[in-house]
């Protein structure tokens, strides 16, 4: 229209197909200044009384003034006509189809999967599609997730209609909305149609109710997409039979021997009134069974389970529900979580048969350590000792044998029996000794027996469950006259064994030479229990310089042993307190005594910091098919990185499968690396063992003998699509809310569903070239304004005005 007018006025419009009236000055400072001045001028003029003239004349004067002021303001708008060579653009419409694993779930009525349903619907709506393609640019997208990241990619019409592969392991609609905002930020965009079951596995899917969902969507601002987002819900609204461990709320770490509470969301559909067992296992060990009572009409159950991890470390726990009859999907009946079990304070139980200086210094050392929670029981009086006073004049309390050795024992990390003859006291029986053995062997506890006239053989432990866990045997030493000798009262200097020279307990200084000097300077000890040789797996750290065991080996004074899951230590003397008091009172240091005991406790409780071999991975979870990297650090006994370490590493799936040997490559400085590609989903255990010297069994090989330095275990999770099946229902709420907030439609995937979805199609042009024709910037405009003001002035004068 405007272009035609310009043609009529004789302007050259060749090469342009569009003309547009524009006001670039609108909103400029000049415009506001003109508006202000014009307004002011009008006010001043109107304020002055008009001459006493007839009404038509007054109207003419007002018209002239008003038009003149209007033109002044119009000038400030800098009006122009822009001649454009413009291209009309089509608006985009995005068709997005869910490509995650839950889309493979078939409908009960006809066995058609959700993905296939989307394809069918698109095929059936060919007419709607054709019309859409005529008016819009139709972009076809597939979206899915890896569990860790979101992915969206363009697909062809055929791919969209044929169902395609739905293998994504997570659905993240928040990420989808953010991606749409990015993709269509600079394009004419009319809307989106989202084909999905709404099974969001991330934040939106976890919304507890509608209000929480609305809150999340408000934060997400789907309106920013800039066009309506319509949703097509795929899948049956009516639930099929399904029982699932939908979600586990658990902290990343818990404290050993303290209750860890987890919350499990169990979902059940289609089972009516029923009670099902929910089991918690660590590996194959059953830790807890919790009955879950299902009720008609209730889909979600919050189950709280509390258990006490008894060992420090990182573990995988699995919650399982039974596979029920008629259940189509059993993958979601099991779910695992990882828990790092750490230590709070080291709980030590010290049981002493008789007050002594050794007891006094051990207790004081433990009591002053802020990392130790010490419970002591001293036998201050034996049954035959009669103080000759009434009981209430004594401070003695009955030793709570049952409470300590039956109930509370598992709450301790380390038990110390110090010069304690068990069968003299308080109904301590072999059953209690068995409990102590089990505490070490099965529960991974630490145990120390300290010497004295009531310890080892003299404590009547020979042939008891305690002997089974000690690092030393309790065999008989026979003297020349054939008598049973159980103590040697001579003074002696304990000698470190080669194992003792490098063991964390007796390595009091990183330098081997300095360590030897320290031990050589330690005060002599007084008296030793004549224990037997080492038990299998026992290691002597310090031995008597002259006395031998009946087997002819140097008599172990300090010995250690790994027993089952726990560790034990024996100190066959009651005079280690000399290492504390004598040097300190003589102006030296007692720090070696403290270090000896501190390291002993750390070793007994499997302190991870004492590990010489540690394995790690940059990630704790990997998508299937992705290579997992394992880094291993091996330290020598002096805690320096060990080159040329002998490392054996294997990876195996926790749920059974082939063990894979891993080959290490050295990165230098004691660091090694390997990688493997997990074969399937689930948790994998990577076990690493390392040592120094020649390989175990390589007896003919020259060089240093093999020395085992340690091992470490690492758990990796290979993410699965199970997340997708945790809650396989169609999330209509989410889809409706998304559509409502963006002005779109939410429809079910039935006949004619797509016909109900329509899009605005505003004209959008792309300007290829243009020319501006200013309207105000000419002599005619200026003369017009001046003429109007002049005419008004002249007429007013003529008609008798001022």
């Amino acid at each position: 229209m405007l272009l035609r007018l310009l043609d009529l006025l004789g302007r050259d419009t060749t090469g342009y197909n569009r003309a547009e009236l524009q006001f670039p000055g609108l909103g400029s400072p000049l415009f506001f200044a003109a508006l202000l001045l014009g307004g002011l001028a009008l006010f001043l003029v109107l304020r002055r009384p008009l001459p006493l003239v007839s009404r038509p004349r007054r109207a003419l004067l007002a018209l002239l003034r008003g038009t003149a002021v209007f033109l002044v303001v119009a000038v400030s708008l800098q009006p122009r006509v822009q001649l454009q060579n413009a291209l009309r653009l089509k608006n985009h419409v995005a068709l997005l189809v869910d490509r995650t694993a839950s889309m493979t779930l078939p409908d009960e009525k006809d066995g058609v999967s959700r993905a296939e349903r989307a394809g069918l619907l698109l095929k059936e709506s060919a007419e709607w599609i054709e019309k859409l393609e005529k008016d819009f640019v139709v972009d076809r997208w597939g979206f899915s997730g890896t569990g860790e990241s979101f992915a969206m990619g363009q697909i062809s019409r055929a791919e969209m209609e044929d169902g395609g592969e739905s293998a994504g392991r997570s659905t993240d609609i928040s990420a989808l909305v953010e991606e749409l905002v990015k993709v269509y930020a600079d394009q004419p965009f009319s809307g989106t149609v989202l084909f999905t079951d709404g099974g969001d596995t991330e934040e939106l899917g976890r919304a507890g109710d509608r209000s929480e969902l609305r809150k999340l969507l408000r934060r997400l601002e789907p309106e920013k997409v800039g066009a309506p987002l319509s949703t097509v819900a795929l899948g049956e609204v009516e639930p099929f039979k399904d029982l699932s461990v939908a979600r586990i709320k658990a902290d990343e770490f818990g404290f050993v021997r303290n209750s860890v509470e987890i919350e499990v969301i169990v979902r059940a559909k289609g089972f009516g009134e029923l009670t099902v067992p929910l089991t918690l296992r660590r590996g194959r060990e059953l830790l807890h069974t919790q009955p879950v009572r299902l009720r008609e009409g209730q889909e979600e159950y919050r189950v709280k389970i509390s258990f006490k991890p008894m060992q420090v470390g990182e573990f995988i726990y699995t919650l399982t529900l039974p596979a029920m009859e008629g259940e189509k999907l059993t993958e979601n009946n099991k779910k695992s979580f990882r828990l790092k079990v750490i230590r709070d304070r080291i709980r030590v139980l010290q049981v002493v048969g008789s007050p002594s200086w050794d007891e006094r210094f051990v207790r004081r050392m433990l009591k002053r350590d802020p990392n130790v929670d010490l419970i002591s029981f001293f036998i201050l009086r034996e049954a035959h000792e009669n103080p000759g006073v009434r009981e209430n004049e004594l401070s003695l309390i009955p030793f709570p044998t049952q409470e300590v050795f039956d109930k509370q024992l598992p709450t301790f990390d380390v038990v110390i029996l110090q010069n304690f003859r068990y069968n003299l006291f308080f109904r301590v029986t072999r059953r209690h000794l068995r409990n102590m053995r089990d505490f070490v062997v099965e529960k991974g506890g630490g145990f120390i027996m300290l010497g004295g006239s009531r310890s080892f053989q003299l404590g009547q432990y020979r042939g008891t469950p305690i002997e089974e866990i000690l690092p030393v045997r309790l065999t008989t030493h026979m003297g020349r006259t054939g008598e049973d000798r159980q103590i040697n009262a001579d003074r002696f200097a304990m000698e470190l064994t080669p194992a003792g020279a490098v063991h964390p307990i007796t390595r009091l200084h990183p330098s081997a030479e300095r360590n030897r000097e320290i031990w050589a300077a330690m005060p002599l000890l007084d008296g030793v229990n004549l224990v037997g040789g080492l038990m299998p797996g026992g290691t002597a750290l310090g031995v008597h310089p002259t006395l031998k065991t009946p087997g002819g080996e140097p008599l172990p004074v300090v010995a250690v042993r790994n027993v089952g899951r726990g560790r034990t230590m024996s100190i066959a003397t009651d005079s280690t307190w000399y290492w504390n008091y004598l040097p300190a009172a003589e102006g030296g240091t007692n720090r070696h005594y403290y270090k000896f005991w501190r390291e002993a406790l750390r070793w007994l409780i499997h302190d991870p910091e004492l590990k010489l071999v540690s394995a790690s991975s940059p990630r704790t979870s990997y998508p299937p098919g992705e290579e997992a990297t394992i880094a291993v650090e091996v330290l020598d006994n002096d805690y320096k990185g060990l080159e040329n370490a002998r490392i054996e590493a294997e990876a195996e799936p926790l749920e059974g499968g082939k063990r894979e040997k891993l080959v290490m490559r050295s990165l230098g400085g004691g660091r090694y690396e390997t990688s493997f590609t997990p074969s399937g989903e689930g948790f994998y255990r990577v076990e690493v063992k390392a040592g120094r010297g020649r390989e175990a069994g390589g007896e003919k090989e020259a060089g240093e003998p093999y020395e085992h330095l340690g091992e470490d275990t690492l758990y990796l999770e290979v993410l699965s699509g199970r997340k997708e099946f945790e809650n396989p229902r169609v999330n209509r709420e989410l889809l409706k809310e998304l559509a409502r907030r963006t002005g779109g439609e939410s429809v079910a995937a039935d006949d004619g569903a797509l016909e109900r979805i329509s899009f605005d199609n505003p004209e959008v042009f792309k300007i290829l070239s243009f020319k501006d024709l200013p309207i105000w910037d000419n002599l005619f405009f200026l003369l017009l304004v001046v003429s109007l003001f002049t005419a008004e002035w002249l007429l007013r004068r003529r008609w008798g005005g001022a």
Partner: protein
Amino acid sequence: MKRHRIFLAILLALLALGALLSAPSLRAMGRRSLVSWVQIKYDGDWNPNPSAARSIVSYLLRVTSVEATTERAVFEVQSPELLYNPFAYMTGCRSFDPWPEADVKRLRDYLSFGGTLLLDDCQGVVGYGFDAGVRRLVSRLYPDRPLAPLPVGHAVYQTFFLLDRIGGRNAVSDIFLGVNLDDRSPILYSRNDLGGAWAKGFEGGWVHKCEPGGERQRSLGFRAGVNAIMYALTVNYKTDQIHIPFILRRRR
């Protein structure tokens, strides 16, 4: 005459058996592993009651599970053997000369790193005699930690016997004085002449009368001695949380 010899032989055999039974366990780990009653010898009146040690240790052995030797050990403060015995007893009736600085330092180290000293004034007059010497010595040992009363709630009154007062030959004070270092009291000071209450004559009778409380006061003196050595051996064991309800109940 022959009957007299048989009687004498039986008597000697019984004495030998008694000595054997009263001796420390033959299976002791070493002589030093037994708790010894160590008395500090200094220039002055260090030994007013020579028989007190055997008497109190015999009582200790009779009533507690502590493995101790009845033989008193006497050491000067510079003796290396003193360090093998983290409990020492020092008594006297009269004042004593100020100790050389080296001896003060030695005793300070002995106490500061775990030793306990039981001081016992057999005269019991504040500011005179042994008391004057003790106060001078303590002020040099711990210049910023003066002797202070140890109230009845202190662990030393409940390490074995529950005491609300200490006995002795005299009854100058119901409580110990002491020096507090961190959470323990390395010095316990009685002004009641505990040693005088423990001392026995050659024929087994008491050397001194306990006044004004008589035998009850003597008994409390023995109990105070046992508690003092138990305190050295167990320190604050009886203030552990597990003991508190029992002790409070019994003290009611």
